């Protein structure tokens, strides 16, 4: 074998590694820039809503957070009713959407015959692509009349139960917190169920088959093997859905009734942060506009707190599992 002079090769390698190092650096900086861009956009949006809402946030301070008034004539604003509506409708949506999504995902990954998985999976993803205004119009013209027919029955049955009954007493308008929550549930269902489906597929067949071999029922395999294995991703998916529910605007605006009040009944109309902004921003000037932007800032805060709770929950779970 002929051995060529090593010197030029070494120089070549040197040049090459120098070029590589440069490219690496550029690549790394580009990536860092992309990541920082997201952060900058987030901080920018938070700061600009803080700045836009400063008149109300700093001028009215605690009153803005604790008052239920919303009076554009007197310029007296309180954010309690929109915060209440946002949290309640999102909570209803989660309570309804999580079990159903769980069922869909389990069915598609574990039980459904192979030929059914594709079409149903595609249908769910299609559901995610429907614009929210369509949900709003469907809600208003189809679902609200339906709800107004079944609400008297709800009041007569669930409304009679002590304590919980209060939630279901009220005029059968068809509009309100419950209706909005159900529409939201339909909207966030595809997000949660497609995340769940993805992660359930990652559970090693080995684990499942071992469990079956030990005599577990399908339910036991799902509950004791699949779910613990994917727990953190499942919770992530749920919070993705919750994030969407908290910020959803148009569909809620159509079916919530848009009235600033805090009630014990889910059949009563309410308002949410984002629907208040969407409703009033167009004609709002001065303090009114400032109050709406301040509401936008509060949505940031509420979402942040919710995500923080999610993180803490995940950490608790991880601790209990001894990881």
């Amino acid at each position, binding site marked *: 074998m002929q051995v060529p002079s090593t010197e030029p090769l070494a120089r070549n390698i040197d040049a090459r590694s120098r070029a590589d190092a440069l490219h690496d650096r550029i690549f790394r900086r580009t990536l860092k820039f992309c990541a920082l861009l997201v952060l900058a956009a987030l901080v920018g949006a938070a700061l600009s809503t803080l700045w836009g809402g400063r008149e109300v946030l700093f001028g009215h301070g605690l009153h803005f957070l604790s008052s239920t008034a919303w009076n554009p004539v007197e310029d007296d604003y309180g954010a309690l009713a929109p915060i209440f509506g946002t949290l309640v409708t999102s909570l209803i949506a989660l309570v309804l959407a999580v079990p159903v999504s769980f069922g869909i995902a389990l069915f598609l990954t574990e039980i459904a015959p192979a030929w059914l998985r594709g079409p149903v999976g595609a249908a769910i993803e299609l559901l995610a692509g429907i614009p929210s205004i369509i949900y709003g119009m469907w809600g*208003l013209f189809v679902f609200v*009349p339906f709800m107004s027919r079944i609400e008297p029955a709800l009041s007569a049955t669930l409304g009679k139960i002590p304590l919980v009954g209060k939630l279901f007493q009220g*005029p059968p*308008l*068809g*509009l309100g917190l419950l209706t909005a929550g159900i529409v939201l549930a339909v909207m966030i269902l595809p997000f949660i169920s497609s995340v769940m489906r993805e992660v359930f597929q990652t559970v090693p067949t080995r684990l499942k088959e071992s469990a079956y071999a030990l005599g577990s029922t399908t339910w036991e395999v799902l509950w004791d093997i699949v779910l613990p294995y994917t727990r953190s991703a499942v919770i992530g998916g749920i919070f993705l859905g919750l994030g969407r529910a908290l910020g959803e605007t148009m569909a809620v605006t159509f079916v919530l009734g848009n009235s600033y009040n805090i009630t014990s009944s889910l059949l009563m109309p309410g308002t949410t942060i984002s629907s208040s902004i969407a409703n009033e921003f167009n*004609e709002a000037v001065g303090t009114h506009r400032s109050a709406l932007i301040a509401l936008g800032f509060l949505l940031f805060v509420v979402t942040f707190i919710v995500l923080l709770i999610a993180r803490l929950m995940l950490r608790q779970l991880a601790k209990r599992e001894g990881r």
Partner: protein
Amino acid sequence: MLTSYKSPIRLAAVAAIAVASTFGMTAQATDITGAGSSFVYPVVSKWSAAYAEKTGNHVNYQSIGSGGGIAQIKAGTVDFGASDMPLDEATLDKFGLGQFPDVIGGIVPAFNVEGIAAGKMVLDGKTLADIYLGKITKWNDPAIRALNPELKLPAANITVVHRSDGSGTTFNFSDYLSKVSPEWKTKVGEGTAVQWPVGIGGKGNEGVSAYIKQIKDSIGYVEYAYALQNHIGYAVMKNAAGNVVAPTIATFQAAADTADWKHSKNFNLVMTNAPGAKAWPITATSWVIMYKKPKNVTNSKVAFDFFKWAYTHGQAQARSLDYVPLPPSLVQQIENYWKTEYKM
């Protein structure tokens, strides 16, 4: 193509043609822009199309809401603004602006009560205010029964529907309630959005119409055109003169005709509760706002020409959309106002 530009003479020639054609365009047609009230948007865009056919001048109107229209004209980014609420003296003076009405519309109380047809229910201002204050909660309340002795009113709860978005319709409606009910004035007041004591909010006239249609025993207020198009029952009203009037073009015009424009500077007058014997009590207009000394005189002249054309030739278009043209007496006052206030 590129090679042809290599010769400087050809380049100059191309440039000259381009410049000439640009100037030629401006000599032929002027594009003016306006922004504001969504209440007038349908009629202004219809006028604009007809006016462009006639004169070649285009009026681009953006329906961004009255608040936005006021902000845009103050910033000087549009040739005219349109607002459902008149500007006060101080603001007009500060910015050197003037304002005048453009078209009239009527607002009607609309209801959904089984067995009662459109135009069969009589309401008056105080009763309407009490319903919206939450003091009258049932359809068979003595106050409603007294106005409608021959109607069979159900013992059902009234569901109050209002606008959830800020709007000129709400401004005129709440202004009317403030004029007829001292309690409404102190407790709620008037504005494009108010703190509603009771009820549910629908977005836009279409939202309120949809709610009224779907919710039994509801009452709301919408622009007259929406009540007609959606076949919702509307009430007739007892007006300031004590007469029961139906919402028609004649009663809307009667309100505009008898409102006290002569004693209002810069047309700063909301014409609800007008005194005329046949005046519809919740009649509204919107105001065009323009600079008295515009930066772009050509555009402003086109804008005046446009509105002048609309007052005289745009009546059919306005009527076809259920708007009401201004009565001649008011047009005369506006043209005098232009002569004295706008010096160009």
